[in-house]
């Protein structure tokens, strides 16, 4: 067959001629380099060079050239007998032709019947942030992104609310067909676009993986044509964005004296602990890409480097990424390709690496800086101020310096595919993807004593008598093999696309950790073998699971007006017991494109008017792999032989399990109106959804007498509901050739509710230590993780008021209270304030979240601004709440606003020694509005660059998180966390403001 094709090509060459021309942008007459030119109906093609020029051989039967380029409307030109064809390409304004990746295939956006959204890579990569998801914040309705300012940490993505309490909440990421739960290894500059499948009908093709939504990432490919070299960077600084003002030494003395009656010892110091541990940090990222190809092959090589210093001393994240994407067209019918990426990252002293920071010293520094007294020195002449001897709080500067925690990861991720089109209506595709991760983590704790070598004065409990080294290595590999067949047929007005396929996936993981003490402080000696063998401990385990699925999707369109989609996926998972192993996930969607009806013809208001409705079912199998198997609890040793040095190993069977555990099932109904009008100037979408999760996993208590170690059994009992409305509106217009602008806004209203526990145990969560115990309670009829605390109804002004506060039986409710103490509501009127008097006080689940995006292009200048915010949620001021000693520092506002005999405040208590119970005093509004990104850019006119052989040059300045409008008195109202504990500010990383500048350079 190949030889036949060759012959045909040869014969065509015989009578060929050459066509040349130039492609320009009509707005300024500038050349457009890199435009793809294809002879319609053939595989012959070329691309324009730096000057926009092209040249192509055409045969006698060729009669049309097609010009296409990202961001421009495709042009088709009849060849006729012309030999010079110059073309002007108009910028693409309409989104009607946009293509959306829908999972195992692509569809035109107009043809989709489910809820999806797309963000283009170019909108994302210029922001000075780590991941694409962070850059997406505020750009898509229905997708809540809760960011963390910590270097190296991905934000939390919640698509249409939180729909599980006990199993995984991570959205499914699909990177070029590879399924994963973490994309911190993906360089944003590698991304062409991100497609989000929001509702169950769109996500149903991912079945049991789709319950938390699906985020599909497609990476860039090379374009055929001459080699293109692009270099992009941005370099900038980060600073703490919102710091709470703490009391200074004088204010501290005043408050502590009022609270305890004793005067703190005299001191010459007035330490600002936040200034001590924070810094202005550098961040930079660089990307160099080479791409190009012929009509048969394309290639793209992209190397990226990112360095992100944390604003906390000694905290740093570095990442190197290399991407190599290739595609080969053997002939018209067979294509194969490879998308591959390598990532190497190092995270130094990140917060919350509890895995290898069992003492939590690093994660605790930010909170310790809140508590440490200003009258203690931070460090003088190489010796630290002894906070722990004074107040039982570790010196945070010492913790930052004397703990060295490093997480290093290597990751190879990629997929290779083979696509065959044996017939014009049939496409067969097989894709094999893999994801190999290896992380080598190391923690080192320096030795130091609580003596005068280390501290200005000896004593206290901050010491480490023996240095300690922990090394942990984790290796995992997963592969996924997809095979699909797509049949596309048109019979008159009936268009059918049928996809059938199968997918198999396997994962295994192995980790190993070792620790020894007494390892010398020399960094070159930080290896396990150097430590004292008598102190060695080690541990290790693994995990493995497999999944297998069969899937089918039928798209039917009648007359391009009436659209139907039906999907079914049959999913099997090794994580579930045999009888529950397979589950079917169906979905249906229908849409009506009213604007294509004959009665709409002739009107010029609507370019698109579309109504769609869908129903779908998806699942969540993110449960522990051993959830249904009774396993032996190991290493339950006992020291026989009277030995103090050895023990006999033992085991216990101490868990009763539910052998019938099954998937959480999500059913979602979605109804939407999409429109594009006024010559594509206004477009938008209004969406209603109702998503109900049944069989949600929850712990059901069982009698303690059965001997289950935690007294609960994980089973499928609860139901959780998310209902909401999403509105998106975009306006864009070109006022003159020199001035165009766009305004886009979106808002999502979501209502989250646990509708039934069905015997499940209402869940206490959000334990913050101190005397507060838990702060959240997940119960019937309330949002997940609702704050459940005492209600403050005022402050006692006099002893008489204390005595007068009685229940119906005349019993004094707070007999030990003093003037200036909080007066708490005795909800059950039993005369005692205890946990039974707690009331619901809102939750971290926002009533609404929204984004606003502005863009202006004036001549060569571009300006953009993005705002993001949420409203109607609450946060818990955990830092304020865990003031456990009378010697802990307090916020300056607390010093000045406190109740005194002269100032009878009814909202602030008198000076106190902390340990207040959990109450709504600590619950504050979480609403905020933030200027997320502000960018100004200037693109140099092409003409001025040509003599430097530069095809494009843009310089820009950008700012991330410039300003936040918030009511919350703490550091940040944006607080990622698991469903039961989110919204509590305790040791969250301080939010940062970034100001950066960069260039985009093309050759």
């Amino acid at each position, binding site marked *: 067959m190949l030889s036949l094709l060759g012959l045909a090509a040869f014969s065509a060459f015989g009578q060929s001629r050459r066509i040349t021309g130039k492609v320009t942008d009509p707005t300024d007459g500038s050349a457009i380099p890199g435009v793809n030119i294809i002879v319609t109906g053939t595989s012959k093609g070329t691309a324009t060079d730096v000057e926009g020029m092209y040249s192509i051989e055409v045969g006698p039967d060729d009669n049309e050239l097609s010009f296409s380029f990202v961001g421009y409307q495709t042009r088709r030109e009849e060849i006729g007998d012309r030999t010079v064809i110059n073309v002007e390409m108009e910028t693409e304004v309409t989104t009607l032709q946009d293509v959306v990746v829908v999972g195992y295939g692509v569809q035109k956006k107009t043809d989709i019947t489910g809820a999806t959204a797309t963000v283009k890579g170019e909108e994302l990569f210029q922001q000075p942030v780590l991941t694409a998801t962070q850059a997406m914040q505020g750009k898509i309705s229905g997708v809540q992104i809760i960011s963390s300012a910590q270097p190296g940490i991905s934000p939390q993505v919640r698509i249409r609310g939180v729909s599980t309490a006990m199993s995984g909440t991570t959205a499914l990421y699909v990177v070029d067909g590879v399924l994963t739960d973490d994309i911190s290894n993906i360089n944003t500059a590698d991304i062409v676009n991100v497609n989000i499948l929001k509702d169950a009908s769109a996500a149903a093709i991912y079945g049991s993986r789709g319950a938390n939504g699906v985020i599909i990432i497609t990476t860039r490919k090379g374009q055929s044509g001459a080699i293109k070299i692009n270099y992009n960077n941005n370099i900038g600084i980060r600073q703490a964005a919102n710091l709470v003002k703490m009391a200074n030494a004088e204010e501290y003395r005043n408050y502590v004296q009022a609270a305890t009656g004793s005067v703190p010892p005299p001191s010459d110091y007035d330490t600002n602990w936040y200034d001590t541990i924070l810094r202005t940090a550098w961040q930079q990222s660089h990307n160099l890409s080479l791409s190009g190809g012929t009509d048969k092959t394309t290639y793209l090589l992209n190397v990226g480097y990112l360095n992100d210093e944390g604003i906390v001393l000694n905290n740093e994240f570095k990442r190197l990424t290399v991407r190599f994407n290739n595609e080969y067209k053997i002939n018209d*019918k067979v294509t194969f390709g490879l998308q591959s990426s390598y990532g190497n990252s190092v995270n130094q002293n990140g917060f919350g690496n509890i895995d290898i920071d069992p003492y939590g010293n690093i994660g605790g520094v930010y909170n310790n800086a809140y508590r440490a007294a200003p009258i203690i020195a931070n460090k003088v002449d190489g010796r630290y101020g002894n906070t722990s001897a004074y107040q039982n709080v570790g010196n945070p500067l010492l913790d930052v310096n004397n703990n060295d925690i490093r997480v290093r990861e290597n990751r190879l991720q990629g997929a290779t595919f083979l696509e065959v089109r044996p017939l014009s209506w049939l496409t067969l595709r097989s894709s094999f993807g893999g994801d190999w991760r290896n992380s080598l983590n190391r923690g080192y704790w320096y030795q130091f004593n609580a003596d005068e070598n280390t501290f200005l004065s000896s004593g206290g409990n901050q010491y480490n008598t023996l240095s300690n080294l922990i090394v942990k290595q984790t290796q995992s590999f997963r592969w996924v093999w997809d095979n699909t067949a797509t049949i596309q047929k048109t019979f008159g007005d009936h268009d059918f696309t049928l996809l059938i396929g199968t997918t198999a996936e396997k994962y295994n993981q192995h980790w190993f950790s070792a620790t020894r003490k007494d390892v010398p402080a020399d960094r070159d000696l930080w290896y396990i073998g150097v430590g004292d063998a008598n102190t060695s*401990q080690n541990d290790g385990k693994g995990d493995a699971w497999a999944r297998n699925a069969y899937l089918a999707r039928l798209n039917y369109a009648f007359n391009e007006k009436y659209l139907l989609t039906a999907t079914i996926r049959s999913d099997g998972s090794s994580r579930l017991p045999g009888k529950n192993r397979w589950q079917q996930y169906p979905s249906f969607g229908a849409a009506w494109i009213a604007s294509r009806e004959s009665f709409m013809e002739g009107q010029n208001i609507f370019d698109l008017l579309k109504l769609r409705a869908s129903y779908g079912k998806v699942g969540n199998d993110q449960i522990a792999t051993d959830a249904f198997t009774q396993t032996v609890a190991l290493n339950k*040793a006992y020291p026989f*032989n009277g030995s103090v040095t050895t023990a006999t190993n033992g085991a216990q069977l101490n868990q009763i*399990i539910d052998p019938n555990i099954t998937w959480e099932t999500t059913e979602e109904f979605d109804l939407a109106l999409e429109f594009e009008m006024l010559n594509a100037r206004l477009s938008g979408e209004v969406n209603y959804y109702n998503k109900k999760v049944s069989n949600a996993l929850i712990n059901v208590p069982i009698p303690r*007498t*059965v*001997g289950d170690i935690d007294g609960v059994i994980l089973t499928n009992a609860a139901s959780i509901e998310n209902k909401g409305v999403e509105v998106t509106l975009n306006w864009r217009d070109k006022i003159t050739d020199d001035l165009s602008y766009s305004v886009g806004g979106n808002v999502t209203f979501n209502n989250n509710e646990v509708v039934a526990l069905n015997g499940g145990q209402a869940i206490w969560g959000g334990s913050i230590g101190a005397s507060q115990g838990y702060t959240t309670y997940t119960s019937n009829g309330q949002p997940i993780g609702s704050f459940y605390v005492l209600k403050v109804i005022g402050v006692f002004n006099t002893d008489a008021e204390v005595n007068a506060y009685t229940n119906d039986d005349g019993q004094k409710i707070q007999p030990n209270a003093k003037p200036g103490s909080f007066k708490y509501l005795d909800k059950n009127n039993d005369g005692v304030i205890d946990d039974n008097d707690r009331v619901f006080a809102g939750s971290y689940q926002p009533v609404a979240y929204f984004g606003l995006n502005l863009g202006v292009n004036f001549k060569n200048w571009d300006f953009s601004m993005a705002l993001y915010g949420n409203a109607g949620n609450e946060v818990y001021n955990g830092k304020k709440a865990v003031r456990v000693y009378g010697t802990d520092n307090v916020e300056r506002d607390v010093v000045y606003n406190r109740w005194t005999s002269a100032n009878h405040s009814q909202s602030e208590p008198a000076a106190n020694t902390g340990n207040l119970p959990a109450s709504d005093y600590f619950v504050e509004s979480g609403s905020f509005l933030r200027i997320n990104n502000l960018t100004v850019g200037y693109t140099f006119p092409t003409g001025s660059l040509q003599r430097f052989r530069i095809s494009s040059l843009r310089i820009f300045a950008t700012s991330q998180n410039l300003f936040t409008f918030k009511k919350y008195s703490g550091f940040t109202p944006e607080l990622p966390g698991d469903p039961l504990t989110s919204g509590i500010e305790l040791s969250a990383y301080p939010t940062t403001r970034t100001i950066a500048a960069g260039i985009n350079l093309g050759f």
Partner: protein
Amino acid sequence: MKKIIYFTSAFFFAAVISCSDDFLDVPVQGGPTTSSDPKLAEKLVTGVYNSLLQGDSWGNGDVHGFAFISATNIISDDGDKGSTAGDQLVPVGDFDNFTLTPTNKFAESLWSGHYNSIGAANQALAALNTASLSDAEKNKLIGEVRFLRGYLYFNLVRMYGGVPLVLRVPRDAADANADPTFQTRADVADVYQSIKEDLQFAVDNLPLKSVAITGHATKGAAQSLLAKVHMYLQEWPEVYALTEEVISSGQYDLVDDYATIWRQEGDNSVESIFEIQTGKFNNANLKIDNYTGSQGPRVGSGGGWDDLGWGFNNPSPNLIAAYEPDDLRKNATIIFVDKTPAHTGTVLWDGFRLPSGDSVQNLYYNYKAYTSRTKEQFANPAEKDRPKNIKILRYAEVLLMNAEAAIHESMGDPAGRVNEVRERAGLDPLGAVTIDDVWQERRVELAMEHDRFWDLVRQGRAAEVMHAAGKTNFVEGKHELLPIPISQILLSGNKLEQNPLY
């Protein structure tokens, strides 16, 4: 062309159907199941011993931790709550002050801890039944497990009265919910009957101490515990006979220096009949969480030193007054903190100087819970909460049980037994002894050893003694027992009945 179509189509079709169900049978990694470990039965027996180390008092279960200390010592007239006045008023202060409620977390964790252990024992017994071991070996292991189960039920019946008598493993949660055994209280007598049967099996199948590996339950331990059970039931002939057997077995004696019993050198001494073993595993301390940490001397407002613990369970002035002059046991049981203006501090047996005055929170601490960082061996001496064996049964107690039974039965030599104990304490012998003498001797000999409160209840004078000690909240007919945890009552749909007056 056709060929290629057929070939590729066939390939894809094959790929589509090639996945079989075996593909999804992925065993749990690193989590052995009952079928994957042939030596499991023996390991499960060790696991039952391990479960005695539970000390998760605020969480999933306590057998010998801080909750146990609260429910045995702090509740009695021997111990005060200690620490700072406000520290742990709930739940610990509620034991000291008899303000216990059914929501008390420690009363709940003792319940769950004991049933966790009983569950581990029942699992071990089930595994032993099918294990391929010789009958002798199997019966010895079963004897050990039944000894431990008997001990656990003995604690439960003394704390709560009649409790659900669970002697088997439920198949699953539904089975546990359906079988009333798990959620209704058995009669006190039935619980005692089960304890006696378990202990009798142990007596019949366990080896003597001299041929047993240290730490395992022995025949002597089973006999001594069975004697104590009979003593609580006032079955004096059995008490007498069993203690006589233990005494005449030649396996036990008193150690010379009383004070050394609670140091590492005194672990598993000739006097030891049954003790909870602690030590080292995986280069870490293997211990009962918070047993020593909760009782260690605590820094006072003066600060200036790195203290030893939280400062709970202080020996009471009432206990101090109970000692006769020159009783060697007083200074072996109690650490006296120097509160004089001289500020000399207190030098402990290992040379450690406990600071004086304001630098220490309380006046008295439990010497029997003191560990020496310098003179004792620990996997991790830097950890304040260090391992400590707990002496559950000592030969001295057997002598005193024997004396008490001898008085009731008017046989034997009660004065001789008591005087053996007194002699070691450096006291003059008594001529003739009364029951009251034996009770007094029990108090000072076994002070801070988790016996006093139950002993008073057994003697039927708990209310009288508690009131005399100033614990006026004690209500007779109520506070002899702990409240049944409210969570468990609610879970049973009120089938589990609360103790009187709670």
